């Protein structure tokens, strides 16, 4: 071990080499890892592999969107215009803020400030819930406008937009039917995203409970860090969903 670099982590090389088996500095250290450093890196790597599966999971939906957007472009343009950009943009900002507080939470855990960590976790949760609240408002609006695919779906407003006060070009009846495909995908993608948010918020409450007991205030930050990765990944999905669903081709060509 002549080439040891200076470790930023307090319990690593020197102690580990001296007595790696006896040395257990933290109660969270598991016996089958030789060092905490190894455990931490294994955790991060494992989390990233899990996020790979999430990329591919959403990847299937994104591909379906890409395909049908190109197949039924007029219908997708018109239906996309039915979404509210202010609500979507507000939600984007809210979610980014939530992610920002999560990142600060990781920092607070790393510098072992229990109070700050709790505060940031609460803020993360509040902004996450706000996102879901606005999403619920949007879903409700879809319900009122008969944009929920299924029996109550109403294509007449796309066939004859003027009668409904929409500034859109009328669609041929068969193309107007394809607006339903847009809303299938809208609900599938945002719904899957919201589902991930809900799971995340449940986990956040669990982490807050643990943080309150002081579990993350003595150098053991892996759960916070890895949950942060998950939460940021959910952000990234929305960062792509927002322009794809709300913004592109805002102007009918």
């Amino acid at each position, binding site marked *: 071990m002549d080439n040891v670099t200076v470790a930023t982590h307090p319990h690593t090389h020197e102690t580990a080499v001296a007595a790696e088996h006896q040395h257990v500095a933290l109660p969270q250290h598991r016996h*089958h890892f030789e060092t905490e450093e190894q455990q931490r890196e294994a955790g991060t790597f494992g989390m990233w592999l899990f996020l790979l599966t999430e990329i591919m999971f959403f990847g299937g939906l994104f591909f379906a969107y890409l395909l049908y957007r190109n197949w039924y472009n007029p219908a997708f343009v018109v239906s996309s215009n039915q979404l509210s950009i202010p609500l979507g943009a507000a939600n984007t900002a809210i979610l980014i803020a939530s992610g920002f507080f999560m990142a600060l939470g990781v920092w607070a855990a790393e510098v072992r400030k229990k109070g700050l960590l709790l505060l940031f976790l609460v803020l993360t949760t509040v902004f996450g819930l706000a996102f879901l609240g606005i999403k619920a408002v949007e879903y409700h609006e879809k319900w009122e406008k008969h944009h929920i695919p299924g029996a109550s779906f109403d294509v007449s407003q796309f066939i004859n937009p003027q009668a409904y006060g929409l500034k859109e070009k009328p669609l041929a009846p068969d193309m107007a039917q394809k607006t339903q495909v847009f809303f299938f995908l809208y609900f599938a993608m945002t719904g899957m995203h919201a589902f991930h948010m809900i799971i995340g918020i449940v986990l956040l409450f669990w982490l807050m409970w643990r943080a309150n007991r002081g579990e993350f205030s003595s150098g053991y930050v892996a759960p916070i860090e890895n949950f942060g990765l998950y939460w940021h990944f959910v952000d990234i999905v929305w960062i792509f969903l927002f322009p794809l669903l709300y913004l592109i081709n805002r102007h009918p060509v």
Partner: protein
Amino acid sequence: MSATHTILNLPDQRTATLPKRTYINNEDGLLSWLFTGDHKRIAMLYLISITFFFFIGGAFAGLIRLELLTPQPDLVAADTYNKFFSMHGIVMIFLFLVPSVPATLGNFLIPIMIGTKDLAFPKINLLSWYLYWIGGLFTLAALVLGGVDTGWTFTTPLSTHYLNTHVVTAATGVFIIGFSSIFTGLNFIVTIHRMRAPGMTWFRMPLFCWSNYAASILMVLGTPVLAITLVLVGLERLVGIGVFDPTKGGDPLLFQHLFWFYSHPAVYIMILPGMGVISEVISTFSRKRVFGYTAVAFSSVAIALFGFFVWAHHMFIMGVSNYSALVFSLLTMLVAVPSAIKIFNWAFTLQKGSITFETPMLYAFGFLGLFTIGGMTGVFLGALGMDIHLTETYFIVAHFHFVMVGGMLMAFLAGVHFWWPKMTGRMYPESLSKLAAVTTFIGFNLTFLPQFILGYLGMPRRYHAYPQEFQVLNVLSTAGATVLGVGYMLPLLYLAWSLKYGAIAGNNPWQATGLEWQIQSPPLTENFIEIPIVDHEAYDYEWLEHKTAQEVTTVG
């Protein structure tokens, strides 16, 4: 290698004793098994579970062959027959083949082979076993409630619009099993990257670890695509979204693309770990280092990589673009290259080796022949013109059974026999197991060789009745299935017997070089008393001989 390096150097097993403390008797009681974090115990739980499902799947295979004994539809109705082959496929693929080698042998051996105490995430490993069972119970529920008749492929729009069977239940089961598989793969990748013992470099790892590593990559990257596809199928069935429904503007071929994006790599998830077993077995029983170790290691990774580029060869007759089909056909031929590299290297490993014919080796020879036939017929099917004639006939059934049963199942049995002494501390009965290996080989060929001819003559798959002229070959096939059934029952019986009455194996009955053979059998819960420091290549029989000689000197 001189002649003295043969298996004749076996240690004297009469003096071997079972160690006092092992992972099996470390803790007592059922709960200590159900809440264990020990990778070896989880492997044993998996072994019992997949054996259970294997015999369920096998029972359906038996019923299928029984119906096909006669040309008339006399045993069951058409619908029931459809349910039989669907359940056979779902159980065998998702509940047996995908977890077979990784979840049992891989779980047990990978941490020991790379010299660590456990997998990186023991709790996730246990979770994966529970998910396996929850998924398995959903599948069984679909069966008990009245079955599902989509085939294992859940083809739309059949599965979404035209069936009144329990598609959603079965799809939920497969969805959950998928996560079990993802967690196993994730655990392996992290363990192999992060937990190797000092000195255990990538190119000192046994090839079993390499091939499981490659399969794990496929599990992690492929399975979620199947998950989302099944979610969409479920949503389409339950609430009528139309992503795959042409009447609503969807494209059923999109389902095929997404489904086969997982399910083609899944074929490699199934076969790659088996190839790892074969590398170990062939090297041990020829007393030679695997020829072209690096090539074999990289060919596993190459198979995994190419596996993602070929899926549309399952769709040549479904109306995909001709140009695209051409590209996929050419890429399909490419996959044959790394597979062939493996076969050639195993053959060269055998060359001038001191070969002995223990049971695992017999299964490995079975694998070599049958997998080669299975692989070569795959090239037939990958060729665009031939595929149109052969696909959806018994030719394709025979092809993938040669790869999956002749290849993978043979490899699995080779592995189970090979590591049985390590897992249980006891030997299986040698002559009986040789009989089982030969029976399996004969039964297998009798079952599936006639199906190549049937398929070539044009008998379509998935029908419960057929024209009179196909009967002779079908009778042969059913007879073979009976022999095959006996061949699979035998190991179940004698392996169970050997748990109590088998000869005590000792630490290294095969004089193999892997780290797993240098520790006691069955191993301690923590595997190693102290973490080993690895200073030799894998399959270094001279190192082993040197080490054994030193031990003798010390004792003597």
